[in-house]
């Protein structure tokens, strides 16, 4: 399973590289090569590493390990057909990781990035409603059951389209340079990860690669179903290209507007969830 884990990390970083490249081409820039994020991870692995004098050293280092740990767990849950609820929990707990990254250094830029991360927690609620809507249809939170349901009834993308839109927005909120990327906007230098350099940043890059693979593959498994690995890869590339268009053509929202938009989406999703629950659609 170690080989799969490494492959998933590298592929996730490649997807992030494609994301940067597509954004650059839309904006008529040459952009970095698609393997730039992999090079970043390797470069940081061999650069000098330090802990800032003002940092809470244990938390500063420990939170990097937690970040890798939770997404490794999520990877195994997804690829063993485990509970979607665990993936949802890990996704929400990533907020705490960002918060820890930001606060532990003592830097005001990191702190504001971390606080913005917690404030934008509203973006996670649509994911919960999305998960609940899926459970109303499939009567299960287990990924393997959800895949089986789709083999009989067809893709949930068509059956529960609003839930797919909500999860798409949730993934968009985690993409770099997106409209909701307020946690790492440039007025905060690099936001919550400003002070993490060297091996610690390489660890964060590994976490980002894994997170991207896990979220994309979860989206495809939940809304399209089990497909051959080649089609899974094609689907993930198409997904990242569509997200890149959204990121390239949309300005980054202010923190207030970002939370407002996410809250509106949450409200709409709650209406949809209530409609399904009360109406007994499934």
């Amino acid at each position, binding site marked *: 399973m170690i080989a799969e884990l490494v492959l998933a990390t590298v592929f996730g970083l490649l997807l992030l590289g494609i994301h940067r490249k597509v954004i650059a081409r839309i904006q008529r820039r040459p952009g970095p090569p698609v393997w730039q994020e992999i090079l970043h991870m390797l470069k940081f692995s061999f650069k000098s590493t330090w802990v800032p004098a003002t940092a809470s050293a244990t938390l500063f280092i420990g939170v990097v390990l937690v970040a890798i740990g939770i997404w490794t767990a999520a990877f195994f849950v997804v690829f063993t057909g485990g*509970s979607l*609820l*665990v993936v949802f929990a890990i996704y929400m707990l990533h907020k705490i990781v960002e918060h820890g990254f930001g606060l532990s250094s003592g*830097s005001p830029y990191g702190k504001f990035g971390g606080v913005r991360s917690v404030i934008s927690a509203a973006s996670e609620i649509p994911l919960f409603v999305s998960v609940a809507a899926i459970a109303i249809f499939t009567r299960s939170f287990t990924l393997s059951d959800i895949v089986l349901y789709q083999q009989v009834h067809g893709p949930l993308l068509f059956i529960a389209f609003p839930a797919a839109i909500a999860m798409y927005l949730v993934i968009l909120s985690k993409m770099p340079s997106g409209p909701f990327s307020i946690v790492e906007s440039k007025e905060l230098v690099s936001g919550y990860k400003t002070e993490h350099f060297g091996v610690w940043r390489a660890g964060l890059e590994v976490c980002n690669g894994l997170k991207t693979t896990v979220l994309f593959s979860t989206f495809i498994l939940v809304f399209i179903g089990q497909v051959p690995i080649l089609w899974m890869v094609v689907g993930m590339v198409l997904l990242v290209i569509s997200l890149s268009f959204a990121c390239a053509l949309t300005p980054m929202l202010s923190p207030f507007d970002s939370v407002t938009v996410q809250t509106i989406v949450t409200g709409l999703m709650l209406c949809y969830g209530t409609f399904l629950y009360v109406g007994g659609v499934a």
Partner: protein
Amino acid sequence: MSNLAGIPYYVLEFGDELVYFTPYTITLFLLALTFTIFVLVSRPERQVDIAFGGDAYTTKEITISEMRFRRFMAIACGLASMGAMVTGDIFNFTLFTAMVGITNVGIVAAVKSPHVQNAAFQYGLVALTATVPLFGGAAVYAAATGSLSMIELAKGTLPAVPFVAKAFLVLGVIGEGMAPFYAAKAEMFRAPGAPYVIMCSLSSLLIFLRVIEVVMLG
């Protein structure tokens, strides 16, 4: 749907009370344990404040007595969170949740900053008010089903849990620090002492994640 979090790996019984570990609850429990260990072994950071537009900056120091008190409250918060993650009893869950609210206030109460103190006071009011629907929800569970055991509720043999009981329980948990009531908590995060402050956000999130499982039972 009743066996939401999977088959328990392990059940520890204390008479009527019990603790159980499913893949879901064990994930949440391990996260609470990890960050509680961080609280135990970490020293607080020295938070840097910059006067934007100038080049002046200051670092905040935390005194030993303040650090001891806040560390104690953060550990108590971690223990309450761990209890709430693994308990199999709805009343115990509400007790742990209420304790999380109290310790959240305690974690920042010793910080000598008016912004933080105001935020802690406002959050404290919301958290205290939220205990009414929280315990009310548990009472309706007991009245309607005759049991507060999550294992019994998961079996599906008891009368159905009224929607209002679940709504009360969720409302109580939201009041302990989830959206939209986390607005007060954001100001609490101005406080220095990252390992302790992070317990405020972690505990609320964990409690929210657990209540999702609880309301799906029965």
